């Protein structure tokens, strides 16, 4: 039976959002350039290329070279956006990001297309549920997993205003808009979407919208949950997490990523040193997952809103 209280989630491909916002950004900021590794159309940069051909650079299927070129251009004052499939952008080029971009703290924005389970039918090489894990080690690098198209848009616009490199996850099925009580997007600051007293759900990426609906189900089961959209995974908003954890004493992290070295691990680091609260990490159990249609795969791992609600309820009722 349909639950009318639930939020209806309409999704959009991040590339569609990128198309317009990137042109908008390029109009405002003349230093913005696009670095392609045979990946600009899929990224949504066709309009940009047509409008600003002199600011578009194609390196072919050679991600390492493209990535270090972005470093060189950033060194010269440009604001390069390097966008390709998330696993290639982060893992093929990991050392280039580590040595040439993150260490010298250069202003390169890396957009990982098809992050998370977006490419659930494309096979294991394309499934990107360990990208945050590999990047979390890098000092200076900001990591953003936007909850909806507005977060994604804001992340792109804000990323050129901060000093240092930024990695943004671009999901194929990105919620168009989640409720957020007019909260402003600020890199490094989580958003308290709903207040509650029994448990805190901290989510990132498309899992934020799922959590909102889980919370509605939990309310019907007399569990009052607090929801935080932690779009910035690095640096983590310690203050917001600790404030909520001290209140509810129970935290659930939910991410479209392996529970190893992702959002949940970041929260665990904060909690273990500062707060006596319990933590349940929900996500994929490793970086290898079953293949199949996106929603079926999420269901298999208990990542749909109703399955999340069951897990949170069990966690809350655990002695």
């Amino acid at each position: 039976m349909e639950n009318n209280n639930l939020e209806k989630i309409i999704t959009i491909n991040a590339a569609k959002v990128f198309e317009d916002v990137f042109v908008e950004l390029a109009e405002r900021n003349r230093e913005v350039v696009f670095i392609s590794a045979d990946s600009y159309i899929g990224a949504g940069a066709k309009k940009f290329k047509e409008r600003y051909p002199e600011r578009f650079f194609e390196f072919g299927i050679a991600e390492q070279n493209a990535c270090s070129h972005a470093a060189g251009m950033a060194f010269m004052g440009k604001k390069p956006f390097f966008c390709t499939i998330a696993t290639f952008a982060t893992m093929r080029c990991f050392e280039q990001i580590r040595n040439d971009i993150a260490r010298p703290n250069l202003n390169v924005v890396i957009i990982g297309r098809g992050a998370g389970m977006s490419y659930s039918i494309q096979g294991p090489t394309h499934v990107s549920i360990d990208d945050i894990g590999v990047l979390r080690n890098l000092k200076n690098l900001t990591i953003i997993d936007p909850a909806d198209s507005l977060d994604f848009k804001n992340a792109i616009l804000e990323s050129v205003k901060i000093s240092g490199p930024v990695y943004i996850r671009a999901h194929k099925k990105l919620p168009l808009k989640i409720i957020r009580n007019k909260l402003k997007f600020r890199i490094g600051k989580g958003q308290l979407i709903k207040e509650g007293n029994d448990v805190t759900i901290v989510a990132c990426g498309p899992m934020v919208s799922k959590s909102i609906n889980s919370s509605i189900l939990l309310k019907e089961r007399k569990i009052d949950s607090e929801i935080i959209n932690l779009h910035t995974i690095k640096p983590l908003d310690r203050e917001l997490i600790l404030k909520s954890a001290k209140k509810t004493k129970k935290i659930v992290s939910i991410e479209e990523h392996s529970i190893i070295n992702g959002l949940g691990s970041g929260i665990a680091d904060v909690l273990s040193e500062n707060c006596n609260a319990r933590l349940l990490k929900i996500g994929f159990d490793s970086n290898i997952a079953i293949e199949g249609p996106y929603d079926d795969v999420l269901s298999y791992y208990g990542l749909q809103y109703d399955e999340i609600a069951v897990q949170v309820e069990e966690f809350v009722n655990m002695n």
Partner: protein
Amino acid sequence: MIIRNLINKSYNNRIRVVEIMKKCGVAHVGGALSSLDILTVLYGEILKHNPKDPKWENRDIFILSAAHKAIALYTVLQSEGYFDEKILWTYNQMGTKIPTHPNNELPGIEFALGSLGHGLSVAGGIAIVLKRETSNRKVYVLLGEGEMAEGSVWEAIMSAAKYRLDNLIAIIDVNGLQAEGYTKEVMPIEPFEDKLASFGWITKKINGNDIKQIYIALSSAPYRKDQPTCIIANTIKGKGIYFAESKIEYHNWVPNEKSCDEAIISIEKNRKKELEKVGK
């Protein structure tokens, strides 16, 4: 006169390398000495740079891609006046600004590299921006012969030709040896000239330990509009120290005091020979 000065500078830098090792221990001396003449000529006569203002906006950019040769670059930068001599005696010591592979904190180091196969790509990014700005600043990169086996180098070679980077000048230090053997045995990669030409580069082969040849090759580069330049510099690993020349065990040498003293005597003999060769 220019050539004699450069020879003297280069041999002074060689002695400095040995003095550092005498005090601070192990270094990649073989590759450092093979490329010292190239580095000395670059900083002495070719690069537009200002040691008193390392970030001078009109400077040419030098990227040491084969960054294990850093000890050579440190001696060159110091002799040019980038930093105080005292820093040289901190090589690999606690908190040093001059570790075996460079970090970004030393004046004159544009990019801190060390993992091979990054430098030409970074340099390409810099050169693209400069070319678009129609700047006359140039970008020089020193690569090692063994490094040429890295696939990313060839990615960068491709894109430099695509973007017609005539402001990019790569120099390959071909000393015939790499960490664990002869390059021709570890991974045969020659002929560089044919390979680079087929990728759209203009090449020139020189004796990379002949100051005059280096000076002529570098001061006349780039050689053709819209094409990147590669100078293939045949060198001798460990050049200047008779017992280290072309010997694999001196790729990374742990010296003792006696051998350092012997090395300095050998360097001075070589200096004399080189100076006699060019006359007054």
